[in-house]
C-alpha cells in the first residue's frame, strides 16, 4: 500500500559498495575502537562540510558533526546493514543541522562571512582587483545560500557540495525523487535571483 500517494522512502538498501562501511561497523560493534575511529575519519570531511554549508558557522559545523558521530556511537549496537551507512549518517547530521538552523536565536550569527580557517585552494596569481571581486562574490553566494529556507538549502548542499544523486538525497530527506527535482530547481532559481539582486556576476 502506498500511502500519501508517493513513493516515499527513507532508506537505501545495502549495496556492494556499502559493504566496506558495514564491515567496519561490525568490527566496531565487536569492541574494536579503532574501527569506529576509522568510520569517523572516512566521513568527517563530508559531514563537517554538510553541517558547515547548512549552518554557515565553522564552530557549529564541528559541534554538529561531532554530535552526529556520537549519536551514531551511542546506538552502535543497534546498527544493522539494512540501510546504506552513509544515508543513515547523513540523516542524523541533517536532523541535527535542521534543529540548529531552526533555532532563531542563532540565526543572526549564522549569516556570517566565511571563517579564516576556510581552505581557499584558488590560484594565487590573480590580480588584486580580481581577487577582491572574487572574495566579494563568494560572500554574496555564502549569504545567499544562508538566506534560503532550510528545505531549499539542504537539497542544494547535498547536491552541489556533497555530490549526491537525486535517489540518495530523496532517501536522506525522506521525500519523493520528484520533490528533490522540483525543490532543487526552486532552490537554484532563488539563489540565482538573490545573487543577481545583490549585484553578483560570475567570474
Amino acid at each position, binding site marked *: *500500500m502506498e*500511502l*500519501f*500517494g*508517493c513513493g*516515499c522512502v*527513507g*532508506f537505501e538498501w545495502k549495496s556492494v559498495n556499502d559493504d566496506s562501511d558495514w564491515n567496519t561497523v561490525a568490527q566496531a560493534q565487536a569492541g574494536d*575502537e579503532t574501527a*569506529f*575511529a576509522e568510520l*569517523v*575519519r572516512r566521513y*568527517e*570531511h563530508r559531514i563537517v*562540510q554538510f553541517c*558547515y554549508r547548512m549552518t554557515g558557522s*565553522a564552530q557549529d*559545523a*564541528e559541534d554538529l558533526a*561531532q554530535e552526529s*558521530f*556520537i*549519536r551514531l*556511537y*551511542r*546506538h552502535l*549496537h*543497534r546498527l*544493522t546493514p*539494512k*540501510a546504506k551507512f552513509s544515508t543513515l549518517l547523513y*540523516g*542524523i547530521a541533517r*536532523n541535527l543541522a535542521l534543529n540548529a538552523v531552526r533555532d532563531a536565536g542563532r540565526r543572526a550569527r549564522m549569516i556570517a562571512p566565511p571563517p579564516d580557517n*576556510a*581552505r*581557499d*585552494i*584558488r590560484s594565487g596569481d590573480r590580480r588584486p582587483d580580481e581577487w577582491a571581486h572574487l572574495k566579494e*562574490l*563568494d560572500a554574496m*553566494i*555564502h549569504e545567499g*545560500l544562508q538566506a534560503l529556507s532550510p528545505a531549499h538549502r539542504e537539497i542544494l548542499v547535498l547536491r*552541489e*557540495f556533497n555530490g549526491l*544523486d*537525486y535517489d540518495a538525497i530523496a532517501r536522506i530527506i*525522506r*521525500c519523493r525523487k520528484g*520533490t528533490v*527535482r*522540483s525543490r*532543487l*530547481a526552486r532552490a*537554484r*532559481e532563488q539563489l540565482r535571483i538573490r*545573487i543577481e539582486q545583490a549585484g553578483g556576476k*560570475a567570474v
Partner: protein
Amino acid sequence: MKRHPSWEAWSAWVDGESDRAEEMRRHLETCPACTEQVEAIRRLSSDLQRLPALDVHPAFAARVMARAKETRIQWPQPWWRRFAIPMALTASFLLLVGVAIPWRLLSTGDDTPSNGSSFAAGRLAEALMDFTEEAASDSEVWDLAMLDSITPDDLLAEVAQTDSFAQCAVLLDEEADLDGLMTSLDDGELAAFQHLVREYGRENRIL
C-alpha cells in the same frame, strides 16, 4: 521537441537526472534561450563549488573518540517511544478523516471550481509528511527509527495494525472520493489544518 523545457527540466538535465536527456540535448543545439538557462545553472554550480571548503581540524576524530569513551551506549528504548511515529501518523490520519473531510463537507456552499484536485490532495499529503517529519526530527524518534533500520513500509505496517488507521487507509485509497473532498483546500485551510494537527498532538501528548 515543440516546447521549451522548463527551468526545472534543465536543472535535472544538468544533473544527469533527466529521462529525456538526448532529446533535450538536441533542442539545446538550436535554442539560445535554453542555452542561457543551462549556462546560468552551470555557472551557479561552479560558483558554489568554488567557495572555500572548511578545513576539518586534525584532531577531529580524536575529539570524537574522547567523547565516545565518556558516552554511555544507549540500550533499546521503551516500546512506547518506538511507537511515537506510528501514533503521530495515526493522529494525522484520524484528523484527516475526522476534521478535514467534515470541514470540506460543511463548506459545500462554496462554489470553488474543482480543478487541480490531484494537486490539492498531493499538497495535503505533502503537508502531512512535512509535519510528521518535522515533529519527529525534533524528538530524536526518527534517529531511533533510522538506527533500527526500520523501513517506511515496516513503520506503516505497524501503524496499519490499529483498526482506526485501517479504516482511514481504506477511505484514503478511494482516490476519487478523496480528490473530490480535498479539491478546494487553499493555503489558509491547509495551514489551519496543520495547526489543528499540532494542537491535537500536544493535547494528547503524542508529539
